[in-house]
């Protein structure tokens, strides 16, 4: 075949459109454009945070110019301004962890028991409770913040703004997340296991203890991780129920410092929270995997 046919140029459209059309028509072609968008998005969403964490290791005081690497200066090295030496920063970190830890301890049992009840309870009250449970998820935090602020000011006056009020607020917005996660898991395990246990002579209490609760462990862990993460991240509720500087959490500290020429120690403080969250999530995920052995699990179990 040595005859070279003259290539006829397409009537309309240049090389680009031809190429686009070919890409679109090729059944096995990978959509490079979508891939590029995806990876660009990933870079856009993560690089700024990485840079911010990088500046927590800046040797100098600047947040915009890199002045060399110092592992410790803004964490514990600087005698006045580092996270571990500045009482305000140190206190904020503790306050954040205290709230998140207690939130997990209170919201998870409450939510688990509520989810179990809502999944099984049939009756006129059940629908209302189910509806009520969904509301905190769709209420903007500022509305909830204002509401709690006012109710502690005018009705439940025995609770003053402060750590207790903050904790009550955190638990209130956390419960619903626990319920959603648990409900997904309850739905995916169904009722066969419990019926089998009852059938084999287990009492109700034994069924709950020996079958249902072990099967729910992965979801309990997942919801604990989620509650910890949203509590650590919360700014609005903590700030509306705050008692002033001694109630400041890390997000409140970061918020108030952000526009006032802060030192890299504020980045270090926020970064500390990231390390702790990642640590908690990794430990929780390990336990989750351990608990899920033998289960067919999926993202759907997490209520996603």
């Amino acid at each position, binding site marked *: 075949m040595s005859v070279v046919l003259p290539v006829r140029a397409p009537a309309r459209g240049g090389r680009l459109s031809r190429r686009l059309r070919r890409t679109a028509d090729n059944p096995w072609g990978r959509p490079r454009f979508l*891939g590029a968008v995806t990876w660009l998005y990933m870079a856009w969403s993560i690089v*700024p945070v990485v*840079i911010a964490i990088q500046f927590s290791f800046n040797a100098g005081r600047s947040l915009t110019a890199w002045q060399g690497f110092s592992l410790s200066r803004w964490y514990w090295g600087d005698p006045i301004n580092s996270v571990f030496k500045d009482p305000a920063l140190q206190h904020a970190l503790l306050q954040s962890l205290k709230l998140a830890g207690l939130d997990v301890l209170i919201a998870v049992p409450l939510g688990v028991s509520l989810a179990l009840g809502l999944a099984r*309870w049939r009756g006129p009250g059940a629908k209302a409770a189910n509806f009520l449970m969904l509301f905190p998820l769709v209420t*903007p935090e500022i509305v909830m913040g204002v509401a709690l602020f006012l109710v502690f000011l005018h009705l439940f006056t025995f609770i003053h703004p402060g750590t207790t009020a903050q904790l009550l607020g955190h638990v209130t917005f956390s419960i619903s997340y626990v319920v959603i996660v648990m409900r997904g898991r309850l739905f995916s395990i169904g009722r066969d296991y419990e019926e089998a246990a009852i059938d084999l002579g287990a009492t109700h209490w034994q069924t709950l203890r020996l079958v249902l609760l072990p099967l729910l462990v992965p979801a309990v862990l997942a919801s604990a991780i989620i509650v910890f993460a949203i509590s650590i991240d919360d700014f609005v509720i903590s700030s509306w129920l705050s008692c002033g500087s001694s109630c400041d959490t890390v997000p409140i500290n970061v918020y108030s410092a952000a526009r006032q020429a802060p030192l890299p120690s504020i980045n270090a403080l926020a970064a500390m929270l990231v390390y702790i*969250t990642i640590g908690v999530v990794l430990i929780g995920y390990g336990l989750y995997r351990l608990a899920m052995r033998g289960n067919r699990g999926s993202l759907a179990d997490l209520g*996603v």
Partner: protein
Amino acid sequence: MYPRWLWRASALPGTVWLFLLFLVPLYAVVAIAFGDVSPIFQLPVPVWNPLDWHFEHMSQVLTLFAPSHELWLVFVRTLIYVVAALALSVLIGYPVAYYIARFSHRSRTTLIVLLLVPFLVSYMLRMLSWVNLLAPDGYVNSVLTGLGILRTPYDWLGGHGFVVVLGLVYGYVPYLILPLYATLDRIDQRHLEAARDLGASRFSTFIHVTLPLSKTGLLGGAAIIALPMFGDYYTTNILSGTPDTSMLGNQIDFYFHGGPQPTVGAAITVVLAAFLVVVMSYYLFSVNRAQKEMHAV
């Protein structure tokens, strides 16, 4: 199987908690918005009985919402910011979720982990990182001036609406992508193959099959991010901090923390909540319809 009282008892603590610390507080806002003001210190006095409600504060606030009044501007601005941020989020989020669900193979795990990273980083740190980047001597300005695109550093943080909108998108888009990804991932591949088999091109398969099937996830994700955006005040404060970019949340914040009139703040909160209830009702209506359509197939 189980004794009847067990589940009711199990649901009781959580329900009571939500009643006392969610429902009652919401009512407290209404009781203040329609309440009294003490004569001397101008402090709000809640009125718990709806029959005794005062409507003057609410009507006063409502006049501020009338076109070309103070709150009208803020309301319109909030609406524009949220709609713009929502549109941009969908424009960015849909392709990403679609690509990960349909085309990533070996890189899927990596991409999902990267997708989850923003959830591990607190919102404030993510905003702080942009404050650092957009500072007059920050990386963004130095890169742009270095490339010759800008001659002098631009004052990004000086109160620009588009910066606030981009900040909202940056803050909230992960919450849109995740549910969208979950929905797209759950679409049965066989539906798509059937569409191709019946002669639909890639593009028309997407338009006629994928898009309708992902409608619930898209609407759900949009609601998840739109609702908190309407109540947001910290993003605009941290990225602009001028009254030019003030949103409804800022007004509420102002009347409670800066201003002397919590009653007005409560009234604005009620207006915001009422507006969102309307939006939500429409949303629930359309989700319901979308689901019915799905079941009809």
